[in-house]
């Protein structure tokens, strides 16, 4: 028995449309009309990185970028996202890479992903992909956020394991390393 993540469509009349996910146009067949973007990503397109902890926008575990904006995939009607550029955790590219080209290919991690692993920001891991996307979003907009700004920016992502301490340490690590890379002398 081989198990996969991501599955086949059930039978039944349903819309067919195309979504642009991680730089690739993906045909969505047989989805239920009311399916959320989260459901379509996970169960039609084989992209389980966005997680299904609450499906009501109260946990951030399904965080993705739609046209570059951080959103909860569970609150996006999939069919209404036609024409938008969707980026999931699977499509985050390490610095210098193009969306979708590296992360899926192997163990090449972005600096945020690397820091989350190294700092101990990962326990059960269910919140982790959402945090990774949200931290990228934050640090892309604000490369040197003050500690309260970090907390406010990440307050939409619940974690039940870590108490957030090591996740904040991971953010610090990325800020430090990125800062060194650009200015060479950050405090």
């Amino acid at each position, binding site marked *: 028995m081989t198990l996969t993540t991501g599955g086949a469509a059930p039978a039944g009349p349903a819309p067919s449309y195309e979504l642009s996910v991680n730089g690739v146009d993906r045909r969505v067949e047989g989805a239920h009309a009311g399916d959320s973007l989260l459901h379509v990503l996970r169960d039609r397109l084989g992209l389980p990185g966005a997680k299904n902890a609450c499906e009501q926008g109260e946990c951030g575990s399904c965080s993705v970028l739609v046209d570059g904006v951080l959103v909860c995939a*569970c609150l*996006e009607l999939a069919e209404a996202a036609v024409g938008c550029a969707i980026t999931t955790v699977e499509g985050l590219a390490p610095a210098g890479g193009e969306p979708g080209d590296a992360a899926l290919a192997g163990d090449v991690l972005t600096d945020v992903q690397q820091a989350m692993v190294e700092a101990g920001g990962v326990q059960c891991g269910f919140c982790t992909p959402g945090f990774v996307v949200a931290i990228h*979003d934050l640090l892309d907009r604000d490369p040197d956020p003050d500690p309260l700004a970090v907390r406010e920016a990440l307050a939409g992502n619940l974690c039940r394991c870590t108490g957030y301490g090591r996740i904040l340490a991971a953010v610090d690590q990325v800020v430090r390393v990125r800062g060194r890379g650009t200015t060479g002398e950050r405090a």
Partner: protein
Amino acid sequence: MTVTAPDRLDDALAALRDDPSSTVLAGGTDLMVEVNYGSRRPEDVLSLRRVTELRRWRVEPRPGGGDEVVLGATVTYTDLLAPDLAALLPALAQAARTVGSPQIRNTGTIGGNLVTGSPAGDTLPVLAALDATVELASASGRRALPLHDFLIGPKRTARRPDELVVAVRVPVATGPREFLKIGVRNAMVIAVASCALVIDRPRRTLACALGAVGPTPVRDHDAEMWATTRLDWDRAGAPHPSVAEGFARRMAAASRPIDDHRATAAYRRHAVEVMARRALERAWRAA
């Protein structure tokens, strides 16, 4: 089920004329929860995502003097936090900052907050205190309703099925504007009670609206007048304690809170009194 996603407002209105049973999708932060949990199964969905003209805002002079900001219906909470808009509507920005999470603020819209019409809708007390006007449009014309005529009950509005909320007109006040909200968590928390207060020194007016303590935002013109006539408009500094206390007591008396799993009615009434007093003192000091 079909999803229609027009680019132009006229097309959206035409679609709604042709199928008034359509469910309008703006940010989706309310609708999709109901869909995901099976409590709502929309037949046809009209998505406003691509109607870019609804995402804009502009400043216009008001007929009676002063300015007002015309906020397109799909202006998001994050948009309200941008410095230029926040400078014009600071209390609305303060309220927007308490909405959900960054993800929700990026998606949820001011029009959605209005049309959902939840008693706990965070922007509603601010809009009520500022005497905002809701603009509705249909294929056959436009109309504008004062907020209190638009919100007719908990989760009930005066919008007709063939109408869209297209904008909300929010007067730009000249004095301090305050928004306070009680939640027991620092993010993603539904208001237990909230309070918006606006002071206009030149016009010598005060307006206050309470959220989550009644079916719709609570205003009490008698309480406002009571305070207005007792405040010493020629002096700076703190308002006289008896005025602040009396005003807060009157606002609390005007509230109509309920007991539910989020808080007791008694606490809500108490909290409203504390918030109204603090809002007045804070605003008066800044005025």
